[in-house]
């Protein structure tokens, strides 16, 4: 029987469900002229959700609904950034949606449902809740990818995403069922993450458990988009409308980190000696494949997809340390990546217009001559992605490398460092195109006059510099969440 306390713990999520239903209703009853107002309403809804998450955060970890739902500091951080980044995506998306006549309730409701999935997923205390959150995140995402259904690429990307994602979710479920079975060998079977953690060490079926772990890792690897489970990423990034790409590139990665941490540390922390080398292998593959393949991309979105693959490799570097410091570094990195990816796509969105996507790298030619401020923001983002000090991306890299060395994986840190200077090339290439090349004759560069986009984008990119100069408080927040 749910108590009032359970409801209070779930307040942000319950509020968001209510709000999104309200938006659905509003969408149905609004006249076409009023419909653009949904944009501001949705942003306010998200900002209120952020407030509820922070204001209602209890001092200790609390659980609700028989430990199905956990509300702890890690979930708080992930939720705040997921909601904040979604609101940012809304701001960036508006001119794009108006130009393509897509501005309507579907975009906003689907995205808020997806972010609700993120919130459930990162707070999961039970294997069922994990899957519930993942499904709630994935299903709206498929629809969002196909939002522009009359274009050629989006439906193709959506089908690819759906089929591969369903396969990965199947693997995850299969793994979960094995883990459930194995946990029953020593006593009562359980789906609860905390209880799983307790029975892990003396289960009598270690082989079944390990097989389950491997299947679950496949699911996690797919959500993170690490090699060799990365094949969906470039196609989906390329095919999806850019605002949706931004969402998948930024917010979904926060969810994937939450998923990985809940499943690996939450339920199998004592088995870290088994999953550590697997994560290290995945990290190595992603770092190498992501960076090498990104070099040959000519499409900016595909390049960013491969860049995501390599950055998720760095996140795994932090996770594979299997220490609180390592998790904190991984969380710090994933937050940093989210901010960087949003800024990079934001510049792209500021340059797109009706009939012109601005998605080839050559579309940025001579940007410094036409729009110096946007070029400068992109410059900050690219240097940050490349990990050049003093930008935020550099410190995030330093932290994960340090945690890898701390966990006696010096070789992995060296792989990470070698990957960093392979990756340098394609980020520098974008800057080269913007600054050193002349704009092509007759090329029109039209910068969106949307004032909210310009302001938020500037803040977003400048945050990379500001956080690079002063990253202590954010790191402290991440470390306190893991009890460092």
């Amino acid at each position: 029987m749910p108590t009032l306390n359970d409801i209070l713990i779930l307040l942000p999520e319950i509020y968001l469900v209510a709000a999104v239903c309200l938006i659905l209703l509003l969408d149905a009853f609004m006249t076409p002229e009023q419909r653009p107002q949904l944009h501001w309403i949705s942003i306010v809804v998200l900002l209120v959700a952020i407030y509820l998450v922070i204001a209602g955060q209890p001092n200790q970890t609390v659980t609700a609904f028989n430990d199905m739902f956990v509300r702890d500091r890690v979930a708080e951080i992930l939720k705040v950034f997921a909601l904040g980044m979604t609101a940012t995506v809304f701001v960036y998306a508006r001119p794009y949606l108006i130009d393509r006549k897509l501005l309507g309730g579907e975009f906003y409701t689907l995205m808020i449902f997806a972010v609700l999935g993120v919130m459930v997923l990162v707070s999961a205390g039970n294997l069922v809740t994990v899957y519930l959150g993942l499904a709630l995140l994935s299903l709206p995402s498929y629809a969002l990818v196909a939002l522009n259904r009359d274009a050629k690429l989006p439906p193709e990307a959506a089908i690819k995403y759906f089929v591969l994602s369903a396969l990965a979710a199947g693997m995850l479920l299969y793994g979960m069922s094995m883990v459930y079975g194995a946990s029953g060998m020593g006593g009562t079977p359980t789906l609860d993450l905390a209880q799983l953690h307790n029975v892990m060490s003396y289960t009598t079926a270690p082989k079944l458990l390990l097989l389950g772990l491997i299947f679950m890792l496949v699911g996690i690897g797919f959500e993170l988009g690490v090699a060799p489970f990365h094949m969906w990423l470039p196609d989906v990034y390329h095919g999806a409308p850019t605002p949706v790409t931004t969402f998948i590139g930024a917010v979904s990665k926060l969810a994937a980190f939450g998923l990985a941490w809940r499943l690996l540390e939450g339920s199998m922390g004592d088995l870290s000696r088994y999953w550590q080398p697997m994560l290290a292998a995945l990290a190595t593959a992603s770092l190498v494949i992501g960076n090498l393949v990104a070099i040959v991309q000519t499409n900016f979105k595909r390049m960013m997809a491969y860049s995501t693959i390599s950055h998720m490799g760095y996140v795994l570097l932090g996770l594979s340390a299997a220490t609180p410091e390592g998790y904190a570094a991984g969380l710090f990195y994933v937050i940093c990546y989210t901010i960087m990816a949003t800024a990079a796509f934001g510049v792209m969105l500021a340059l797109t217009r009706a009939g012109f996507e601005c998605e080839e790298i050559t579309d940025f030619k001579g940007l410094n001559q036409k729009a110096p401020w946007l070029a400068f923001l992109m410059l900050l983002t690219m240097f940050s992605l490349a990990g050049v000090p003093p930008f935020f991306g550099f410190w995030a890299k330093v932290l994960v490398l340090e945690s890898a060395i701390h966990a006696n994986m010096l070789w992995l840190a060296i792989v990470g460092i070698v990957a960093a200077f392979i990756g340098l090339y394609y980020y520098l290439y974008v800057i080269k195109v913007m600054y050193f090349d002349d704009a092509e004759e007759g090329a029109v560069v039209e910068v969106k006059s949307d004032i909210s986009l310009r302001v938020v984008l500037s803040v977003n990119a400048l945050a990379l510099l500001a956080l690079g100069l002063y990253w202590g408080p954010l790191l402290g927040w991440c470390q306190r969440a893991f009890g460092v």
Partner: protein
Amino acid sequence: MFNHLLSLLIWLPIVGAVPVLLAGTARPMLARSLALLVTVVTFVASLWLLHYDPSGSVMQFGETHVWIATWGVHFTLAVDGISVALILMTTFVGILVIGGAWKVIQNRPHQYMACMLLLEGLLIGVFCATDALVFYAFFEAVLIPMYILIGMWGGPRRVYATLKLFIYTFTGSVFMLIALLYLYQKAHTFDLATLAALPLTMKEQTWLFFGFLIAFAIKVPMVPVHTWLPDAHVEAPTGGSVWLAAVMLKIGTYGMIRFILPITPDAGAHFAWLIIVLSLVAIVYIGYVALVQEDMKKLVAYSSVAHMGFVTLGIFMAFMLVRESGNVEMASLGMQGAMVQMISHGFVSGAMFTCIGVMYDRTHTRQIKDYGGVINMMPWFGFFYVLFAMANSGLPGTSGFVGEFMVILASFSASPWIALFCAFTLIIGAGYTLWLVKRVLWGPVTTEHVKHMSPLNARETWVLIGFAVAVLAIGVWPQPLVHLMDGSVAHLVQQLAVHKI
């Protein structure tokens, strides 16, 4: 004032870059004047550093700000005599570089000037940092304005050159980052003084030594990782070349004395022979390479590699002298020579590149064969050019002589063979420099390019006078400079003798 002098020196040019950038394309004169103002104010402020007391404690003007408490990173700055000399050189060159680029840069001058200021602030930061992570951040960040500078205002192959510069140097420094993170595991701090006192086994020291060496050797640059330098110099705009030669190369050797010497003295002593051999190769072989260059900038670039060979030779010979023969006095002399050579080379190479820039602005060619008889058209320019050429070949009375002489003298007590090879440079150096002067300045006017050359204007004259004063002052009266660095050099040599195993 004195408590925050170093912060002021770092942030003044960096923050000053913002209004320069805001001046925009529409107001180039405003951007230029603001940039000049910022560099002059920075230079005047840096003169306070002359209050450095060489007989007092080694590190002075220290300041500490807690930066990242959870990670034990402090924003600590302090200077010793060597840093003071290098910072003064940086701020002085900063003014001359702005002056040199005044009218020359017509394409987006505000961005050019902002890059210059950014570069100046970051380079000062490198020389002040006493926390390894802060040092690393400045050390790497220097590449950002340099990348833009060469890529935007460079020659025809600028993209190749600037990517090569960035990737080459970044590749080297990431190994240093791994080394630093390893040290952090052991010491739980990035403070250089603590790291210097950390005991390390020979195996650890060897790995760390090579980690640091790759980073700094590429920056210096030493043979065989010098190939980015000629490309970068040839393609860079004049101002970029001057910064590169005058100050950026010095952060490589400066890093060596801040990291390799105190942190890995035993590995350093063990592998000193390697550095000495590479330095001699740089001095002799690269000298010959310079001889056959047809591009003036390339010639001076190669001569820079040869001259920086003296600096690395002086630093690592000290290991040999202290560890093998216990000759502290000669080791100090060699080290002192290396430091003087660093300062001197900054001014001489900066001046040489400025001279080439002056000619290039008039003719738009850097090929030696396109010149001849320039003295007929530009008599005063000829005067300066000969002066700097003499300094480049190490003539007594110019700054070039002082450092080289001290290093050669010290090398004689290490081994007459080393002395033989390194004294060779005086001949080769004179060879390529004087031959360059002969082909460019003397003789009748033979080419169309030279016929249309106009004499020096007032701005160029002042810039060259600035360089000339520095070159002659150090050459004629090196005592103040030597005195400034004396205590710090003695401290460095002391550290060489410490066994950390």
